[in-house]
């Protein structure tokens, strides 16, 4: 590839010929975070505290102190996040190869199924049907599960009931298959986790975390605007904060979409 092509890309982005779609929720204290049983350690919520705002604390400048857990807001999961990936090389956000931060995406639209059933699980036949229409998922692609979950109000978004969260996700077979048979670079969702709300009851529990991170692949969650992406051809830029030995981080996820 010549540098000319790269400059053409930059110019197409600048002119708007290549659309840049923001797949990120605003990082704010209001956004739901993962809920674990209270006896476990909890993700620190997002907090934004003013240092100064053109006032006596700093007359000409505005800035904040920000605190949050690694897994808050739209965020990235590195392999080290799960026990299956704990011994892999370069498994944290600071050591992962930077080239993995840019990759094409296949978007599987399951919004109608998810609207019918909050516990909808993605299966191999659904992906095979998608492939029949859009072609085989290439290696080192993101698979993004579109559910339109990001369009819900926060309460329905978290959808917590007395038996836990009810949100869509992948089943164990499809996760193993995507990782082993399709060599995906990662799996992304609109929901609070890459796994379904009830995934603790699957075998293995939390299959997306289990298989993705066990194979050194990545997770993206709390994505939005997936409805603005084509089924294939979008390129996702997802570069997490370089937190030392970090298991993940909130990040700005953008997608480049070429004109059709």
């Amino acid at each position, binding site marked *: 590839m010549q540098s000319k092509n790269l400059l053409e890309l930059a110019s197409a982005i600048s002119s708007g010929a290549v659309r840049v779609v923001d797949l990120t929720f605003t990082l704010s204290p209001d956004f*739901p975070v993962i809920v674990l049983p209270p006896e476990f*350690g909890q993700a*620190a919520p997002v907090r934004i505290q003013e240092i100064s705002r053109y006032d006596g604390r700093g007359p000409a400048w505005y800035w904040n102190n920000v605190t949050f857990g690694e897994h808050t807001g739209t965020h990235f999961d590195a392999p080290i996040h799960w026990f299956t990936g704990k011994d892999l090389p370069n498994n944290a956000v600071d050591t992962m190869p930077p080239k993995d931060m840019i990759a094409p995406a296949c978007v599987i639209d399951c919004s109608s199924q998810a609207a019918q059933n909050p516990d909808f699980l993605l299966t191999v036949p659904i992906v095979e049907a998608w492939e029949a229409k859009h072609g085989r998922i290439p290696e080192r692609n993101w698979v993004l599960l579109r559910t339109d979950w990001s369009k819900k109000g926060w*309460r329905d*978004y978290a959808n917590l009931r007395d038996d836990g969260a009810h949100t869509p996700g992948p089943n164990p077979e499809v996760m193993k298959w995507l990782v082993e048979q399709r060599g995906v670079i990662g799996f992304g969702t609109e929901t609070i986790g890459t796994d379904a709300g009830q995934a603790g009851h699957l075998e293995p529990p939390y299959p997306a975390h289990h298989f993705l991170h066990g194979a050194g692949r990545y997770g993206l969650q709390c994505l939005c605007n997936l409805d603005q992406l084509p089924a294939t051809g979008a390129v996702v830029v997802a570069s997490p904060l370089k937190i030392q030995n970090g298991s993940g981080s909130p990040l700005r996820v953008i997608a480049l979409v070429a004109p059709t």
Partner: protein
Amino acid sequence: MIDPIKPPRRKNPLLRTRLPASPPRPRSRTSHGFTRAAAEGRFMLQRCEACGSFAYPAREACPSCLSADLAFVDAPRRGMLLAETTARVPSDVYFRERAPWRIGLVKMDCGPTIVAHLHGDCAEGAAICMSLQLDKSGQAVAFAHPEGDTPNMADDKQWREMTADPKFRRVLVTNGRGVIGQEAVAALKAAGAKTVFVGVAEPWRPFAGEERLRDQDGIEIVTLDAADEKSVADLAADIGGKVDILVNTTEYVRPGGLLDRRGTSIARDEIDQAYLGFINLAQAFGPAMRMRGADGINSSAAWVNILSVYALANWPAFGAYSASQAACLSLSHCLRAELRPGGVKVMNLFTGPVDTEWFQMVPPPKVAPRAIAQAIVSGLKGGLEEMYVGDVAEEIRQRLAANPKALERELDR
């Protein structure tokens, strides 16, 4: 007979909100024996250990036998109103604004004669019941009530200056997710609060009792995460000028001390919720409350903290929690001083372990959340500053006063 107070009309926005004046403040150090009694709703006088006679006002030596051995003890409250007078044009700004103001000379059955503020139903020659109250300066004053109940007794103008009665006031209960908050909401509403705003953090997270809370009239559920600076500031921007009583029902209880916990995550949450939450609430709501201390029937009146009695003495089984409560206790004294110019009371309610989830493994006696709610209301109606709810709290206080070192060893079990 006292006319019942009426629900306040809406304010005339063309009129300036009058600033709260304060009654005279200076007291001798010895006189603060009365302050301590008034803060707890007790009636105490000095009694001579040598001759047994009661003395008033506070003295350094017994007026009967000149012994210096005078101690504050609980004293009989009964007396007789000898004479009353009405101050119509007092020179003091506070009293001038509230004139006419009745005071009287009361002969106590136990001996001394006391100049006291009078409830409207006190009549010359009749028996009265005396109490010590904290006035808008936070200082103890003697207050004479009729001996029995009279109609609309709590609505007396002079009495209301001494109390923080929820009637017709607007209350913010900061955390409605827990049982304590929910019981407080119900009790305050039953006590005649006009509106109870009830804060709910993370409204996307369901919680027990939510339906019942939503179904009650006069209750407004508001989004409030006390630990989040912006959430608190946003709510204060909406309702800061309408919060007459703030009841801080933050509940964040976790067992554990230092060595058996790993890291500071839980401690940080404890500090975030209890201590920083307190600061956020104070900074957002305090200034308007301080400014609105004389704003009519529904003037700002009180700030209530619910503190663990282990704020006074660390209980290692809940050691880090105890420390967070101690921090809040210290902060409450700062808040009390800062709200003083507004005449806004800061009431601390100390409890032992409460009958809630995180004290599951603690054996009884435990304090029922409803008992806390009832104590809040009775404390506000009585104008108290310190309350000990339940046997454990009272016992810890007494053991601490008797021998702090012994208590430290005893709590280490």
